[in-house]
């Protein structure tokens, strides 16, 4: 178990080392400038460098197993998580094309029916109520402009 944790922490530390190095590279292209005349990339360069150093400290800690750093979480359902994330990305894609009410109805039906296992009739009913109620609250009452889409709502 400890070995798995060490590997996981090392991988995450190496990831941040890479992010830090890429940030330094990007910052140098923007122009780091000097202490007397800081450039657009100044804060990015130095922050990137600090990130690399801190990641290396975490990596060293992981190798020495000083840090018991990966959290024990309950069993996560990665398949469901992936489905929900995909649904949310599709929601963002279709929101302005199909309008708020229709897209929200489809998303809520999917989340309730497919992910949470509520029966389809009930899911559709709750989803319709949620879409219409949130439209009434946010668009009509709070005057937040929600996308209208093809059908005008």
């Amino acid at each position: 178990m400890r070995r798995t944790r060490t590997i996981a922490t090392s991988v995450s530390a190496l990831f941040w080392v890479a992010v830090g190095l890429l940030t330094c590279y990007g910052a140098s292209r923007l122009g780091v400038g000097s202490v007397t005349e800081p450039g657009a990339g100044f804060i990015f360069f130095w922050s990137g460098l600090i990130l690399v150093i801190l990641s290396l400290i975490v990596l060293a800690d992981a190798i020495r197993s000083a840090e018991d750093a990966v959290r024990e979480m309950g069993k996560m359902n990665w398949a469901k998580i992936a489905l929900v994330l995909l649904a949310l990305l599709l929601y963002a894609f279709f929101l302005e094309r199909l309008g708020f009410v229709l897209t929200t109805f489809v998303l809520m039906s999917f989340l309730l029916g497919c992910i949470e296992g509520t029966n389809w009739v009930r899911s559709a009913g709750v989803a319709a109520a949620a879409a219409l109620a949130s439209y009434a609250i946010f668009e009509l009452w709070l005057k937040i402009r929600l996308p209208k889409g093809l059908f005008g709502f």
Partner: protein
Amino acid sequence: MLESLTSLIYGFNIALQPQNLLYCFIGVTMGTLVGVLPGIGPTATIALLLPATFSLNPISAIIMLSGICYGAMYGGSTTSILLNIPGEASSVVTCFDGYQMARQGRAGAALGISAFGSFIAGTFSIFGLILLAPTLANFALRFGPPEYFALMVMGLTVVAYLARKSMAKALMMAVVGILLGCIGLDPITATPRFTFGILELADGIGIAPVVMGLFGITEVLENLGVLTKTEVFAEKIKGLFPTREDWKRSVGPIARGSLLGFFLGLLPGVGAIVPQFLSYALEKKLSRHPERFGNGAIEGVASPEACNNAAVGGTFIPLLSLGIPSTAMTAILLGALMIYGLTPGPLLIKNSPDLFWGVIASMYIGNLMLLILNLPLIPLWVRVLKIPYSYLSCFIILFCLIGAYSLNNSTTDIYVAVVFSFVGLLMKKFAFEPAPLVLAFVLGPLLETALRRSLILSDGSVLIFLQRPISAVFILFSIVVLVVPLFGQIRLGRGLSEED
């Protein structure tokens, strides 16, 4: 003192206007509701309601958003006591003895003392706010860019120091927060920085989608298929008014909890969670019967509940007097102040006395509303808790998406929220805490401006931070905070509960 009293009366005149009373009521009710519901916290709720407040005047808006902050502290205890699940991270400690009291048939007394303790502490912290915030603001008028830079560095190092696991990881998240916060046009040369050609990123990444992703959607994703049923322990709650014996046991803990919470809440980065743990530990240490703690000791409910409420009042002081947020929650409030066209900082109290004193007076009224309404409404909150989590989680996701979208009416913000929800999940998995990231995200642009101005002022000498006495104190304190853990395991965050 007399001046403060006159200003406070002026504040009450503003807070008692019907519109402000209504928004105060909505704020505290929403706060209690999200405090009761596990899965969505005050930080995400404030971000969610932010766009809805654009049509209001800034005073009503801040009154409502502040109401959410302290209302959530009242609501959080309800789930801790009845369900053994903290509705808020800052109510974790209340579970220890609150739930045991509920098991012994004393749920009413636990809920009652938690409400009264919260009210007393809330009142105390408001008076502290009245006395300290204007004084601190006057002092901060001497601050220039180096002092602000040093103060922000100190805030971020304290947040990292309080991290529950690895301090290095918390510092990493603070650095990542600064990087993300600085994305967009350069404040001096207007060069696009790390925007990757995406036009919407020129203005930077919005705080709302980041918070929605990290605090709202992540929580739902983590619990997918895990939390399916919530069982409320107490069906019928009786005896909400604590007995004379309960009061006798609780007076001291409430007083100590209020003091501890308020003064720790003042420190940048401390928030309400750590003081709660410390107050519990302190009461256990002071008790003649420490073995009662964890088995339904009323002191174990009274002190932490008073403490977390007082701490919220404390966190408002750096926000309103210095313009520096000390928690993720106050970071969003800072964003709100800027959106309303106000300039947070030492001049806020002088330039917008109606806002400052109006909000403070509303906090007192809000606390009173919570005390009067909260106890009778507990059966309603219990009923709310019986709503299946499957429904709640879908609604939380929907509200987060609307909240992310509506600030700029941009679907890019929804993509950002979705990306950050996944990032948040990975952060949980790999034990990276989100609070330093959010705080640094908000402070990043301020920090960069202060740093660059300081360097221009000093003609490129970094020694300016040590040559000016106030900034030198902040920098030295930050160095001590960074160095101390190297000489032992004396970090407050260690040993705290994993729950966040």
